[in-house]
């Protein structure tokens, strides 16, 4: 292979990576209704698998090119005056990470879904939507300008809606889909305003142009709300919606109504990480706006602890994982907020591995239990579904941060960066650590309630069986990734290079060589983190293994159980009044009264005019005679007007007769 003229086959046709799932979606959607499941499976897996293969090839070419950042404009989409938003795709180190995660984890989950959804109606529809989601997500991560990114952003929101409401005949599922879409839209409003502000400030929305120009700007001072700060805050508002942070997180627990593969792919591994990706991509803007970064860090940290507390007492296995996702996303934003963008992306990657693993295992458990999701009706499953148990256990260890699993390295990097931050770093660290303890507690609670102790279900109604190979193989692959995924950063522990951070350094530009003092601090903090996780494990062990009795819910427990009544609060303060407004003002007054009224009014008016004018046709000759005379007067007036007009008209027109 020649060294300088590399075979840039895929890179020149980078659009093939998103296009393949789109084709798969279209074929399945349009033709799949009549096909047997295996054809649909073939198309879906084929397109996603090929896309993954192309992504691998693109990455290989990228490396062969010496990791030169690649950008190509494929066609002009919007040209308006000086503004150009084209279909431009780019590939740099950050994109490499995202593309591999999306296509790789996506492909594995597709395989899993063929087993999970095998007996469901609407099989073709599911895969059509899932492939469509892959298309939009890939557009999002490959985009080289904000506008195309926003296309992907909106598209994944749409697919999320379609997939959450997949069981659309179930009212709660349909409502959950709507809730997700609407709450996302609120965030998108902020995102769009941010985009407008960036356009106004920089005249373009290309990443290249915007970031290059922004780098030359003076950073805003802390507490100063300059253009960059406001733009970053608005972009972050979009990220809170998409990535389920306070206050726009409420859709994610409800989104568990969707099938479990959807929860795994969209609401754990990929879509919800889009917000983190945007913040990381715009790191140039954020580093010039310290107020915005502080806000990001605080929101991330607050969300982490908030969601963790709710997860402590949830009975539904998927809801625990949902709150866990929100909490872990909070960690990622905390990382970005303190400037450790690389650590945030690292955690994004490892999180996608072990969170997908956890969700897929939960799906396996649910499948084994015939649809049961309440953990209080499970128990003692360890011996019955061994593979699932082991995989779930791997995932739990990974998320809680025990070495040498993936979560240890990534979470540790975040907490270390938080500790070192100038803006209330120690407080952020402390809260993050507390959230880690909670994480460990609720995850092990989940494991022991589900798999440990005695069974709390009726064996005659539920036949517990292990899942088929199509489901267990992806589980095992994810388990492996959860184990080794963090080893990129492992040498850093022993004073070696942190491969992952070095890899991302060209993008984020802040690979500082660790001094020995910070290095020993880092080691200390890692040990503290592991101890914290162990604390959570021990408490959960004491409380939930063995025979467990479900108590009544009172006081603080009740508040946590009801998710701090946030949904009820939103309903009362925002949703309720808006619905009232829509129904009574916009519908009754504006739509029915004004719009329908004016259209009807025109009809009524015409009718009324006709009704009135009708009276001239009275059949009475004398009235007709009067009308004739009136007409005659009009004609006389027109003819004799120069003679009749009053004197001042004559004077005004200069005395002309």
């Amino acid at each position, binding site marked *: 292979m020649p060294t300088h003229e590399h075979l840039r086959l895929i890179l020149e046709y980078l659009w093939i990576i998103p296009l393949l799932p789109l084709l798969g979606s279209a074929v399945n959607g349009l033709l799949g209704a009549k096909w047997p499941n295996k054809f649909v499976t073939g198309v879906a897996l084929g397109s996603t698998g090929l896309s993954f293969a192309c992504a691998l090839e693109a990455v290989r070419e990228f490396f062969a090119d010496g990791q030169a950042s690649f950008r190509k404009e494929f066609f002009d989409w919007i040209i308006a005056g000086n503004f150009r938003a084209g279909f431009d795709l780019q590939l740099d180190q950050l994109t490499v990470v995202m593309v591999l995660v999306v296509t790789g984890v996506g492909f594995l989950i597709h395989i899993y879904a063929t087993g999970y959804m095998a007996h469901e109606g609407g099989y073709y529809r599911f895969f059509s939507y899932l492939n469509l989601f892959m298309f939009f997500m890939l557009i999002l991560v490959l985009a080289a300008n904000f506008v195309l990114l926003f296309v992907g952003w909106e598209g994944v929101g749409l697919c999320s809606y379609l997939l959450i409401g997949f069981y659309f005949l179930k009212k709660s599922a349909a409502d959950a889909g709507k809730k997700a879409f609407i709450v996302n839209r609120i965030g998108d409003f902020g995102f769009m305003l941010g985009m407008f502000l960036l356009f106004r400030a920089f005249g373009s929305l290309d990443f290249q142009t915007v970031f290059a120009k922004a780098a030359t700007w003076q950073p805003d001072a802390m507490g100063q709300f300059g253009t960059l700060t406001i733009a970053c805050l608005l972009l972050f508002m979009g990220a809170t919606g998409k990535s389920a942070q306070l206050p726009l997180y409420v859709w994610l627990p409800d989104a568990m109504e969707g099938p479990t593969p959807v929860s795994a792919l969209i609401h754990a591994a990929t879509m919800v990480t889009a917000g983190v990706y945007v913040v990381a991509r715009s790191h140039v803007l954020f580093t010039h706006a310290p107020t915005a970064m502080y806000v990001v860090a605080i929101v991330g940290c607050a969300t982490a602890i908030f969601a963790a507390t709710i997860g402590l007492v949830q009975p539904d296995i998927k809801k625990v994982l949902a709150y866990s996702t929100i909490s872990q996303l909070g960690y990622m934003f905390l990382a970005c907020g303190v400037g450790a963008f690389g650590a945030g992306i690292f955690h994004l990657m490892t999180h996608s591995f072990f969170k997908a693993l956890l969700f897929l295992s939960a799906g396996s458990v649910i499948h084994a239990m015939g649809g049961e999701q309440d953990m209080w009706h499970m128990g003692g499953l360890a011996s019955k579904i061994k593979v699932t148990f082991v995989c779930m256990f791997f995932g739990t260890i990974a998320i809680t941060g025990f070495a040498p699993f993936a979560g240890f390295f990534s979470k540790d990097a975040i907490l270390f960066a938080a500790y070192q931050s100038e803006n209330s770093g120690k407080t952020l660290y402390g809260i993050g650590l507390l959230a880690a303890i909670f994480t460990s507690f609720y995850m092990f609670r989940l494991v022991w309630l589900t798999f440990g102790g005695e069974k709390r279900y009726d064996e005659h109604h539920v036949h517990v069986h292990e899942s088929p190979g199509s489901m267990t193989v992806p589980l095992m692959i994810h388990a492996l990734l959860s184990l080794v995924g963090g080893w990129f950063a492992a040498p850093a522990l022993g004073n070696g290079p942190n491969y992952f951070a070095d890899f991302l350094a060209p993008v984020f530009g802040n690979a500082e060589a660790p001094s020995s003092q910070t290095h020993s601090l880092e080691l200390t903090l890692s040990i503290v983190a592991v101890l914290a996780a162990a604390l959570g494990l021990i408490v959960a062990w004491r409380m939930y293994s063995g025979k467990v009795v479900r108590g009544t819910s009172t006081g603080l427990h009740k508040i946590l159980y009801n998710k701090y009544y946030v949904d009820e609060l939103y309903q009362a303060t925002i949703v309720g009044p808006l619905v009232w407004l829509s129904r009574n003002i916009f519908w009754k007054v504006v739509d029915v009264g004004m719009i329908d009224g004016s259209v009807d009014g025109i009809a009524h008016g015409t009718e009324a005019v006709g009704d009135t004018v009708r009276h001239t046709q*009275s059949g*009475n000759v*004398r*009235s007709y*005679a*009067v009308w004739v*005379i*009136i007409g*005659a*007067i009009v004609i*006389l*007036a027109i003819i*004799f007007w120069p*003679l*009749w007009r009053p004197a001042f008209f004559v004077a005004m027109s200069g005395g002309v007769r």
Partner: protein
Amino acid sequence: MTAPLVIFFVLAALAVFGAVSLILQRHPIHSALSLIVVMVALAGLYLLMGAEFVAAVQIIVYGGAIMVLFIFVIMLLNAGLEERTNFSRLATYAGIPLALAVSGLIAAAIVRSGGHLPAPAPSGALTSTKTLSMLLFTEFVYPFELTSFLILVAILGAIVLAQREN
């Protein structure tokens, strides 16, 4: 007060009186006779102005043929006193104001136009029968032929209308 002016006023008063009588009479035969009075008065005015041929035609054709026709029809139909129905409110209220408006407007136009027309002079040479017939058969021959056609159509129409139903 010259003689022509006096004669004018007398004839004018007669014409107006006849017209008012036409309106106020309740039996159509009285209205017809009032109209004859008007026509005779107008013929007199034509003579005063010097249009002798027109005056003669007015008496012979209008008074002698058309009005006679009217009277025949009235007597044929045995028209009685006029019924006092009043189905049209519009006509009742708007009739007189409109009439006043029309005549007032015309009169205003006449008065405001300055009135620099010479008075009609009773010189027979201008409007002798010979002059009129010269015009009629040279300049106005086309309308003249058309009117003969018109009369033909009228005759046919009258015959058709008067047929008894078969």
